[in-house]
């Protein structure tokens, strides 16, 4: 029963994704709304992502230090932190933060628009609501999550530099050289590519939950909640897939 309802839901989301691509390539293109959504999803999420990125980098460095010192590998801290932050922590934390903040926002916004007939009003005023509301948000989330992740990477690494200097001393240049010298393109690329999929999944799921919310006030709460839960779960599942694929291609 649970499996069949899960498969039915997966099928509906797949059709929703198909509609996204069909509607997305056809004019008219909602450029202004897309740019506004980039501002909402990207710029307005930056403080949250920045703070969590900073704490993540600092905590990781402070936690790693005693163990690394114990093994006489203190000089490896920048590389360890850099790899962990860039490859896993930053994409995952950013994905989860965006799923929480943006996912709930989109889910609640679209579902309340559904309940108050605003989506129908858009339709009767000659606006394709799917294109205006869904395509713009999914596209903006797909593009903004990688940007936020890269910023989170930079902030996390700076926090690691601060962490190293709290109990030792190194220059920023040396710290960066340590990381850049050890990282390969094959290590960084999958970490960046997977964040596009994170953003797409978060945008698509939250729009789906909001757009097809039940036509009552309880539906608004359910849509916001399930958008966050399903979006967060999707981030973890996609991360697992990304790790398996990049391992299979030797990009690790």
């Amino acid at each position: 029963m649970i499996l069949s309802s899960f498969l039915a839901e997966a099928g509906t989301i797949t059709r929703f994704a198909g509609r996204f691509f069909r509607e997305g390539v056809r004019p008219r293109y909602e450029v202004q709304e897309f740019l506004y959504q980039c501002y909402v999803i990207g710029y307005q999420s930056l403080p949250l992502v920045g703070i969590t990125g900073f704490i993540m980098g600092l905590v990781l460095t402070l936690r790693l230090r005693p163990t690394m010192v114990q093994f006489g590998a203190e000089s490896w801290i920048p590389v360890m932190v850099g790899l962990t932050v860039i490859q896993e922590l930053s994409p995952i934390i950013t994905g989860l933060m965006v799923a929480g903040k943006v996912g709930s926002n989109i889910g609640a916004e679209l579902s309340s628009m559904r309940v108050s007939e605003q989506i129908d009003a858009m339709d009767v005023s000659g606006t394709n609501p799917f294109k205006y509301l869904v395509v713009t948000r999914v596209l903006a989330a797909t593009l903004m999550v990688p940007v936020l992740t890269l910023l989170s990477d930079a902030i996390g690494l700076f926090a690691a530099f601060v962490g190293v200097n709290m109990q030792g001393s190194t220059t920023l240049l040396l710290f960066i050289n340590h990381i850049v010298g050890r990282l390969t393109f094959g290590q960084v690329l999958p970490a960046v590519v997977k964040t596009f999929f994170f953003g797409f999944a978060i945008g698509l799921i939250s729009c789906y939950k909001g757009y097809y919310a039940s036509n009552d006030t309880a539906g608004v709460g359910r849509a916001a909640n399930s958008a966050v839960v399903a979006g967060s779960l999707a981030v973890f599942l996609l991360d697992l897939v990304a790790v398996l694929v990049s391992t299979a291609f030797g990009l690790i």
Partner: protein
Amino acid sequence: MLPTRALFATAAAAATPAEAVLTVAGVCLAFGENHVLQDFSLTLNRGENVVVMGKSGAGKSVLIKCVIGLQRPDAGTITVLGQDLGALDHAGLDRLRTKLGFLFQSNALYDSMTVRENLLFPLRRQWLAHTPAQEAELVRQALTDVGLADTAALLPAALSGGMRKRIALARTLILRPDIILYDEPTTGLDPITAREIDHLIRAVQAKYNTSAVIISHDLACVRLTADRVALLAEGRCYAQGTYAEVSANADPKVHDFFI
């Protein structure tokens, strides 16, 4: 005195040639086993207000959603301004919708936009104004028509229920529609505000010679706004005529609505 009443008073008497602007013929629509509309037929003439009455759940709102193309009937034809709705593609339907106004029961104002932005939204989507000055004039005119000229910068949350209804009507009027569909325009309003909305509906009809289908079971609204009343029961147009004719109908299914 309300501006809407002034508008009503100065309006020229509408000519009423029997030119059908909307024809609903044999429309059937079912949701699963629930047959909401069964062979429903109705004609709306130019400059005429037809009020559709019926019990809750009888399918009144579904009917006007079929007329605007938000629902597709299972059978039957709907002809709006000479165009068969079923034969139109999406672009054709969008073009036709510029001539149709829809006043939602919940008003459906965009919460995140100011009143001005709410009014500009359909205008800009349809490319109907080419300069900011034209836009400003159309917004000013629409707001003046509903007696709320000073609300352009406000958000819908700052307005009362009656004001929101007026703004929703202004948003409908800004496209200068030939036909307006009102979905329970006075529901949830106090009697005084409800009567103001009734007068506004009449004022709009007189000023712009619009035709309207009004869904309502508010008897005062029906009496004030209807040129003709149609009763939707058992999925079909059970009775129709002027308010006096229908209210005098001895059939219990009709008579019960007017008690």
